[in-house]
Each structure stands twice: as structure tokens, then as C-alpha cells.
């Protein structure tokens, strides 16, 4: 089940606070990890933000003084996007690698 995939991935990534799965073709938040503190409104805003920052690319990172938000577009289904909100000391390489695998599993109908 896709929900479990996000929860398991969030557990694997140290410092991960939120994982969400967006469908940019419908501009909808389709999934989120069960432990996220983000409201649905906040996730909707992030979905719009993903559309802006991923307009021409496959990955984007936004950093503040306290955390990163990473948007990762699926290699296989370009409208599928994973959003990860994480701590500044999170291993970004983990997010990219494990996140792409997760996107493929969700896209494959897990």
C-alpha cells in the first residue's frame, strides 16, 4: 500500500518530517505520511510550489534557516512528484535515491 511506502521511507530518512506524493497533472496531493504535522492547506500550497520550482527540471531544493523542502520528479511518470520536508542535517542523497525508488513503486501501483 502506497501509504505504507511513504511511512517506511520517512522512517528510513533521518530528520524526515513530511513526505507527500503530488500529482501535478491534477495539482492534487494524493498521499502524505501519517506522521506529518503539515496541514492539508500547507500541503496544497507545497503542491503549487512544486509546480513552480519544477517547471523546467527534475529536482529542486528550498532551504531556510531550519529545514529543507525537496521536490523530486519521477523519472518514469513526470507528473508524479515526491515532496520531502526534512532537517538541515538530513542526507539529501538518501532523499534523492530512496525517493526515486519510492516514486517508481507508487507509480507501479504498490
Amino acid at each position, binding site marked *: 500500500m502506497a501509504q505504507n511506502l511513504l511511512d517506511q521511507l520517512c522512517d528510513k530518512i533521518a530528520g524526515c518530517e513530511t513526505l507527500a506524493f503530488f500529482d501535478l497533472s491534477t495539482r492534487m496531493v494524493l498521499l502524505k505520511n501519517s506522521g506529518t504535522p503539515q496541514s492539508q492547506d500547507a500541503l496544497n500550497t*507545497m503542491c503549487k510550489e512544486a509546480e513552480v520550482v519544477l517547471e523546467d527540471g527534475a529536482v529542486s*531544493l528550498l532551504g531556510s534557516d531550519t529545514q529543507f523542502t525537496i521536490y523530486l520528479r519521477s523519472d518514469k511518470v513526470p507528473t508524479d512528484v515526491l515532496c520531502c520536508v526534512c532537517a538541515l*542535517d538530513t542526507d539529501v542523497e538518501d532523499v534523492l535515491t530512496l525517493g526515486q525508488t519510492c516514486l517508481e513503486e507508487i507509480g507501479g501501483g504498490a
Partner: protein
Amino acid sequence: MSSDLQNKLEELAGTNETKGGALVLCRSGTPAAMAAILRAIDNTILPRLLELKVGASHISVLAGGRRLRAIHAVSGDLPSDGLELGQPLSRDDEAMQNQVGQLFKALTAKEGVLTLLRKIDPKASDQSDGGLEIGGLAKSWDVDLNATPPSALAQFIFSLGEDVLSHVEFGGDGIIDESGAADLNTILKSDELQEKVTSIQKETRQGQNASGKNQVIVLSGHLPDGALLCVTQIADSSALLAVQKKALSSVATAWSHV
């Protein structure tokens, strides 16, 4: 207790000093590098082993009580002949002071980033007497302790090292610094790209709440050959960078140290 005070107390107590890896002090090869080393020693109240490194060259010193107690180890291409490693330094031994000064100058003359790692080490506690006071060393070695270190933005850019292909830094009066490939600089300075960046910033949560806040945005797909476009704002300075396409993690790591 304010977080600043808490941080200072933790710094003095030495907690967490070895957890976050080495601290980037500044770019070596600048007058600020010697001053940064002396200030690091001056900030060391409790006995500590300080590991100073530029590339493959490295000096470990024992410090405490705001004094340089002893040179513990030297590696890399540095002038260490005649140094008595581990022996207490005395202000009466002027020749040794000069030799230690030459050692530090050789390290800070190396091209690269000067980093500092503080360690709690029993050897540092053993050296509780004597040592060289920083004011005297600064005078003897002709170091300006007030030499201004590079800005946080300059340090951020520098700590990315060769991952930066090109950069343009903006200040109050326009472009204040730039480096790297000319063709990428031309793109970074183009009105078209800057308008695009401004437009993207306005539509992000950070851009909408950016007043006075530090932020970094890394975008793919805007530059040739897969290079990443990095937009950064720290305090009153901002910069556009072209970075290697595989450097997202490096940018994140550098940002986490800002």
C-alpha cells in the same frame, strides 16, 4: 536562557564539538586565516585538541585557557623540522615561537578551505601549564586579530569548492563579485534569468516570507549541461550560482553550516 547564551555555554563546555564535523573557518591564503586560527585558540577555555586543516595539510594543537599550549602533530607539506611535538610552548623560547608562526603561516598559505575540528582529548588536559597568549602571538607574528573574515555568503560559496562552476554576487550597488566560467556568468547576469528567478521566488513560500531571512533555492533545468541554478540570500547579500549537476548534497551540506 537565551539560545545565544546557551550556545556559548555549550561551546565553552565543549559539548557537541566533535559531532558536527569540522567547522569551516575561512578561505586560506587570506590575512583573515591567521586571525581565524588565533581567535579559535583564544575562544578555547577548556583544554582541547584543535585540528586545523587545509586540504592534505594538517596541524593539531593543544589549547586551553585561551592559550596555545603545544603543537601536537603535523602532517602534509609543512615545515615541521625542529619542532618539539607535544612539548609545552613557552614565551621565553622566542625561536620556537617563530617556528610555530612559520608553521601556521605555511598552513594558511595553502590554497583551500581552512577547517577546525575541536576534540576533547586527555592529552590536552595534560597540558595545563604555560602556553602562549594570543595577544603576544598576534604581535610577534604581525597578525591583525580584527582581520575581517569573509561574509557568510562568501563562505557558503567558497565551501562549495569546485562544485561552483560560476557565481555572481549582488550587493547594494549591483554586482560585487563574480567568478567562474564566462559563458555561465553571462547567463547568470542576463535579465531573462534574473526575471525568471524573481518570478519563482515570488511564488514560493520562502520568497513570500523572505524579509530578512536566509534562504537558498536550487533549481534544475535552467542552465546548460544539467548544471543546477542556486539562488541564495544571506543577510543583505544575494548570489546566483551555477553548480555541478551532482552537487545538490554539497549545497545542502554547505547551507547547513551557514
